[in-house]
């Protein structure tokens, strides 16, 4: 019988039985099983509708998922019975166009990730901020009429000492608007004028900090939209809000539109230590990066501490597809991480020594003359002459009497005093003030053909320089005659750098970095073979160390030597954070609208006037003070912070909950704050320590549209208005700004507060976005309405940048335009006094400030004439003072041979022996959504949905990666709990004591994971965590389940005790606080100098510390014996016999 015939026969013969079964389910159970061959045929398949029903949905809508992850995916939500049941990609990115009709390709599909797909669990989750909450003590203080100590102005301690342990009260949004407005008024008023300044000095604030307030109490108000690019109106609304506070100042001090000051706004990109601080030092531009889709144009891709596969997930395929297309990938890393399995070569180095490796490679390229001579001479300052006496550039006016600086005609123009450049969109050139142009003068090269110095105009870059026919010397020492007749010795920058780099021989580099010398040579030879087609992708790894700016200068040096800047396929790129608000350079229309002169016609442009000031949040995390040590204040005037008395932030867990040194903030700094107001939709650690938590809409519920963009992809991402009904009692972030402004209007009688948010009240937020669109060079050609209409269908649009893929610097290299520097060239030499003083006039390699086995922060150098830093004695400090604070300004120069025998000061206690670093990982973007059940359970090896072990803080938990040999030496087994302690001088917080209740909360306990992918002596823990709080510890110890969940707030910690930030602290780099560095401003083409938020300011060092590890408890359930998977022999280091065979592939032959 053929299969077909028999199948047919069975079908017929069983039809009767099946019919009977369908009519009587009970009877069906009793039917004999009548399936002959289930490969062929099955009788009753009606049940299959179960899954068709489960899959069914009623409708879809689109929304943008935008944690701070640089992707921002427009997602599709599937709705059933009014509930979002799941989310997915839109598959419409390939339909995106720019306003010229250029199309993206379907290779951008699908865009989403696991964090976006668990969002329904978060929209409806039990840790949603379901209504606005107010801390009891704070409300009582406000209701009591803001009592204060008449001497110091301090509020009574009783209202604030309970922060983090207090009761929370439900409030209506309106009550909370009023509380916030009252606190704003009272605090600003208290700290205004001479009386306010006196209070602040008595409270112990730095007098320079108090002085820069200029008497305006509003300057003690600090606002921060969490990564503002993630919401142009929603989060940058806090910038606008800060500008509005000038009205409050006017109300208090009656200073009028001319004399009033707004609030301060904290930085973001630099606060997250995402800024590569050396980029502006070389290019004048905030950051050089490229769309990640460029990768396949690069024949050689080098990754520097960039775990692309884990941290750029929707764009990971650009790397693997480049490799499919034949590109070579070399991964420079401190471990064999996820990206290592996508690389051809993997070079494992000691943490924080990337720059030494770069210098070693640069040395080979220079010595063997494998650099691109033409690029080096025409686009960089490497041929420019430096005076050996002053260590500054030789200026044309030094040698030519009456020299006047060359006119600027190559995409640059001088702005006369009193003139203003046009708005960014209408700017064809760079703009430089007359004063700066005079200061810069012109640099000089040694014309080797003519045998004399030649002044080089700033315009003469690239082809324009080549056309002059000058062959500048790169090496040698020359004498020039100064205008005063004296002889001055000069050297090209190249010569100085080569002298310095020559110390970094492959063998010495190998000792410093641990990388085999063979790897250094291979990297140099690969680079030499890939001029113009090498991608230097730099990640957070090397970026988040104290000396990060130096490695940036090193990367640019390698890129410049190999003609890999500004090329499609050849470029550096720094990848950390999503930051560039300048992508929408019409933003001043919104964030800096003049509050004294509000334009009420939505069709007309706003009047722009900035009253707010910016400030680095690093001072706040540094005990709310600048860096003053010995006899010197190291913080530049342009950077000077003010005291922080009121903190208002949105969409961010990074300013308290995931802040560097967060327990120091909690114990020592925030008790001095008088109000902490935040917006959230998910209860984070930052909420735990706030006073007012506004319940705001989740990303799926936005009732007002918004816009964001990203630095790694070409798209504009709209948050279209959502049709989803609000799930809880929430409002939009922008409604909160308007609501508080409304209360301020009521309380002050000044309607202008409310008018400032007029379009919010009229439900016309789109009007603000249209203003931004009309004024932004990347959006012009689109209306916001048009791009929102596309987004409603799941289709993004492309930014109208100059190129796709975007390559920052493309115009400079391909159209011979100047960079945003003094010389117009890429500058590898820094002549400003701050740089010379700290030994960073050349890009030196320094040991890490904490994560090193050796003496910290020492400059490593052989004989280098051009290094003349000040010594500790010059600052009135002891040379042997290695305490954490003074270490920051300790500029000792030593040879490697002197350093390698030294030890980190903590090693006096032998148990201190580990570098501790906390990079990011795949399971969360910062801390979002780490505590969502299905994410936590996949977060490493300890996820257990049924929590067999009640010690577990949650259904998964934090862990530290440790080399098994290190663990064994300390008697620690895989899966054990341990304590991790950093420098007891100041961590987990200054002034801790063993029996302190705060210490119990702040000291880190975690589990050990045996991890043979990391070298001995290095410990690694992921940054993406919810740390222990006073409430979670109380929960862990009192909940019968043992859950580390705050019984008062439901906050869920992933640690039992402490957290990864128990080991970090705030660090302030002196060369990041200069008043002299020339750099482009945030928006448009204007060049300025000194502090600029997110461009030139401190970045801290969140990834480094030096620690000890102590065993706490066994890993098996309830703490007795070995963790089960290890005991069963399935873990590395514990392999049973079958595992051993399996690993060798011995089950087949």
């Amino acid at each position, binding site marked *: 019988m053929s299969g077909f015939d028999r199948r047919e026969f069975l079908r017929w013969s069983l039809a009767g039985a099946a019919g009977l079964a369908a009519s009587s389910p009970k009877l069906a159970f009793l039917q004999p099983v009548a*399936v002959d061959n289930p490969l062929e045929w099955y009788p009753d398949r009606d049940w299959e509708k179960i*899954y068709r029903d489960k*899959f069914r949905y009623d409708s879809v809508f689109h929304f943008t998922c935008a944690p701070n992850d640089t992707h921002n995916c427009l997602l599709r939500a599937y709705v059933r019975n009014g509930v979002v049941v799941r989310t997915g990609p839109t598959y419409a990115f390939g339909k995106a166009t720019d306003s010229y009709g250029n199309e993206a390709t379907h290779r951008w599909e699908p865009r989403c990730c*696991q964090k976006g797909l668990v969002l329904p669990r978060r929209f409806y989750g039990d840790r949603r901020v379901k209504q606005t909450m107010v801390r009891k003590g704070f409300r009582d203080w406000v209701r009591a009429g803001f009592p204060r100590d008449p001497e110091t102005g301090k509020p009574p301690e009783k209202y604030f000492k309970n922060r983090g342990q207090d009761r929370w009260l439900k409030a209506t949004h309106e009550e909370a608007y009023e509380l916030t407005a009252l606190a704003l008024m009272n605090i600003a008023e208290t700290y205004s004028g001479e009386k306010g300044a006196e209070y602040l000095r008595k409270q112990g604030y730095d007098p320079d900090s108090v002085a820069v307030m200029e008497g305006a109490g509003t300057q003690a108000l600090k606002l921060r939209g969490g990564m503002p690019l993630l919401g142009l109106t929603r989060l940058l609304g806090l910038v606008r809000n800060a500008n509005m506070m000038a009205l409050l100042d006017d109300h208090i001090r009656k200073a009028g539109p001319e004399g009033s000051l707004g609030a301060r706004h904290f930085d973001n990109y630099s606060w997250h230590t995402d800024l590569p601080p050396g980029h502006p030092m070389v290019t004048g531009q905030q950051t050089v990066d490229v769309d990640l889709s460029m990768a396949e144009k690069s024949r050689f891709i080098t990754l520097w501490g960039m775990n692309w596969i884990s941290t750029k997930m929707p764009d990971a395929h650009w790397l693997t597809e480049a490799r499919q297309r034949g590109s070579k990938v070399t991964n420079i890393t401190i471990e064999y991480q996820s990206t290592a399995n996508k690389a051809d070569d993997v070079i494992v180095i000691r943490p924080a020594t990337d720059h030494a490796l770069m210098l070693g490679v640069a040395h080979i390229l220079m010595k063997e003359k494998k650099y691109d001579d033409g690029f080096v001479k025409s686009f960089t300052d490497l041929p420019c002459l430096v005076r050996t006496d002053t260590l500054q550039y030789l200026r044309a006016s030094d040698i030519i009497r009456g020299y006047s600086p060359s006119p600027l005609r190559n995409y640059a123009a001088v702005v006369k005093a009193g003139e203003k450049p046009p708005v960014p969109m209408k700017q064809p050139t760079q703009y430089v003030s007359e004063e700066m142009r005079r200061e810069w003068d012109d640099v000089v090269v040694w014309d080797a053909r003519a045998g004399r110095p030649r002044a080089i105009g700033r315009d003469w870059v690239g082809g324009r320089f080549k056309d002059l026919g000058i062959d500048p010397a790169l090496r040698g020492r020359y004498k020039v005659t100064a205008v005063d007749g004296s002889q001055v010795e000069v050297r090209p920058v190249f010569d100085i750098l080569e002298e310095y780099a020559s110390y970094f021989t492959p063998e010495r580099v190998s000792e410093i970095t641990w990388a085999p010398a063979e790897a250094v040579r291979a990297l140099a030879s690969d680079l030499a073979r890939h001029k113009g087609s090498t991608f230097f992708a730099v990640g957070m790894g090397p970026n988040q160390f104290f000396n990060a700016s130096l490695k940036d200068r090193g990367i640019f040096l390698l890129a410049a030597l190999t003609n890999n800047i500004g090329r499609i396929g050849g470029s550096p790129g720094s990848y950390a954070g999503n930051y560039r608000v300048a992508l929408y350079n019409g933003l001043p229309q919104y964030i800096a609208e003049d509050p004294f002169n509000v334009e009420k016609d939505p069709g007309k442009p706003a009047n722009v006037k900035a009253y707010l000031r910016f400030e680095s949040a690093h001072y706040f995390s540094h005990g709310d003070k600048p860096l003053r040590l010995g006899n010197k204040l190291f913080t530049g005037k342009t950077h000077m912070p003010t005291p922080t008395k009121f903190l208002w932030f949105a969409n961010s867990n990074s300013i308290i909950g995931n802040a560097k040194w967060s327990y120091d903030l909690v114990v020592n700094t925030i008790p001095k704050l008088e109000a902490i107001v935040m917006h959230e939709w998910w209860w984070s650690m930052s909420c735990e320590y706030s006073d007012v938590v506004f319940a705001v809409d989740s990303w799926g519920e936005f009732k007002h549209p918004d816009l964001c963009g990203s630095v790694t992809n070409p798209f504009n991402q709209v948050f279209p208005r959502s049709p989803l009904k609000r799930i809880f009692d929430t409002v939009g972030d922008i409604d909160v700004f308007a609501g508080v402004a409304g209360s301020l209007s009521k309380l002050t009688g000044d309607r202008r507060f409310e008018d400032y948010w007029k379009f919010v009240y009229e439900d016309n937020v789109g009007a603000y976005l249209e203003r931004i669109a009309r004024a932004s060079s990347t959006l012009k050609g689109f209306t916001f309405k048009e791009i929102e209409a596309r987004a409603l269908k799941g289709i993004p649009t492309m930014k109208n*940048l*100059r190129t796709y893929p975007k390559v920052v610097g493309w115009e400079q290299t391909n159209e011979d335009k100047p960079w945003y520097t003094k010389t117009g060239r890429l500058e590898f030499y820094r002549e400003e006094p701050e740089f010379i003083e700290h030994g960073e006039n050349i890009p030196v390699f320094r040991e890490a400030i904490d994560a090193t086995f050796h003496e910290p922060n020492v400059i490593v150098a052989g004989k280098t004439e051009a290094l003349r830093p000040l010594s500790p004695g010059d600052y009135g400090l002891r040379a042997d003072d290695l305490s954490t604070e003074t270490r920051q300004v300790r500029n000792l120069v030593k040879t490697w041979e002197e350093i390698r025998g030294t030890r980190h000061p903590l090693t006096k206690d032998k148990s201190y022996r580990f570098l501790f670093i906390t990079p990011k990982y795949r399971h969360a973007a910062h801390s979002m959504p780490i505590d969502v059940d299905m994410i936590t359970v996949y977060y490493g090896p300890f996820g257990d949905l049924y929590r067999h072990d009640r010690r577990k803080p949650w259904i998964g938990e934090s862990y530290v990666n440790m080399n098994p040999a290190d663990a064994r030496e300390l008697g620690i087994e895989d899966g054990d709990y341990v304590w991790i302690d950093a420098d007891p001088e100041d961590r987990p917080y200054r002034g801790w004591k063993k029996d302190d209740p705060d210490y119990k909360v702040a000291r880190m306990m975690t589990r050990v994971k045996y991890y043979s992918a990391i070298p*001995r002596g290095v410990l690694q823990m992921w940054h993406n965590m919810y740390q222990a709080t006073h409430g979670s510890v109380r929960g862990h110890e009192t909940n019968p389940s043992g859950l580390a969940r705050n019984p008062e707030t439901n906050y869920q910690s992933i640690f039992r005790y402490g957290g990864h930030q128990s080991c970090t602290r705030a660090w302030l780099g002196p060369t990041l606080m200069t008043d002299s560095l020339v750099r482009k401003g945030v928006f448009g083409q204007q060049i300025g100098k000194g502090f600029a938020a997110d461009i030139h300011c401190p970045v801290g060092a969140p990834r480094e510390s030096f620690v000890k590890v102590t065993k706490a408890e066994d890993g098996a359930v309830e703490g007795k014996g070995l963790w089960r998977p290890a005991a069963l022999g399935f873990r590395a280091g514990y392999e049973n016999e079958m595992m051993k065979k*399996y690993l060798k592939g011995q089950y087949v032959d």
Partner: protein
Amino acid sequence: MPINRVYNWQIKRETAYPFEGARPDRQFAAVFDINKCIACQTCTMACKQTWTTGKGQEYMFWNNVESKPYGFYPLGWDVRLLEMLGPQRWEGDKYAGKTIFEAAPRGKAAQGYLPEEYDYAYPNIGEDEPMGEVGRGDYITIPHRIWHFYLARICNHCTYPACLAACPRKAIYKRQEDGIVLVDQKRCRGYRECVRACPYKRVFFNKVTGVSEKCIACYPKVEEGLQTQCITTCIGRIRLNGWISPPEKADPENPLDYLVHVRKAALPLFPQFGLEPNVYYIPPVHVNSAYLKQMFGPGVEHAVRQYRSASADDTLLGVLTLFGCAEQWIAKFKVSKGVASGYDAAGKAVVKVPIKEPVYVRPFYDEKLQVYRHNIT
């Protein structure tokens, strides 16, 4: 118990099986490119959120991604089965050892074991943990001396499913129209013989409902011409759904047939188990071949060579470029003038995509709009 002989092309011989061989009209299949998998678990969450949000399903991941060699879900699943089977042998590309059906103990359909509940804890154990130890300073080149890779797993919708073979109630069947293997949720009584027999441990027992469940290959989507949830959410763009033909009927315009039969670049998982599984893996190019041969059979070296040749081969590169580009099933493909096109079964174009990304340079000054376009804004 197995009494019939069925032909399994993956091991180039007949094997014992309880039922007569019967291939469906079309066979659901997929290719997973391990060289692109990033272990992001987006597929896992897509599947979880779509299918297993109910009571008793908490621990179930019909789709999961595990790091090899130390990742398992459930704990030690493949090691345990390989050990039960004992060392086996390939003779060239023909399997000379025992399949799980041939090694079945008396009274059972297949060799297998029932995991303990606790074995399903720690679903991401072994994540990123390598074979070998990194030194203080290391330089690792291909083949990597220290290695790991990611293995994404769903039900293989086998041609000869062990779950189906083992079910005492015959409540598991293979759909004739698409070869998808299902557990009848109404008829299953939870004997767990399928859980024991499936060597891939892709059937899960639900303690609350008392029945077993498994990956359904998203048939409600497949019936609409769409690829599965784990495939359409795969941001690593490692996956492609398709119909696989037996080798003698291979159609070079069918992307699955092209990759599996024509180029032999994609291989089945543990073919020696004898189930003729229908998820095909492009093996990782950086891993030593002894381990890979144990996992994917003797074709690994050839497959790696094929994959490495794609950069100079527009047809192969073209079909690989189509991964992830569309939600719809791609029944046929063509590559012409640097553009890869996918078509549905009716020959209608589903997607077109250039193999190399375009470059656009926009005008510096747009006179009409009076705006300057910069990359530095």
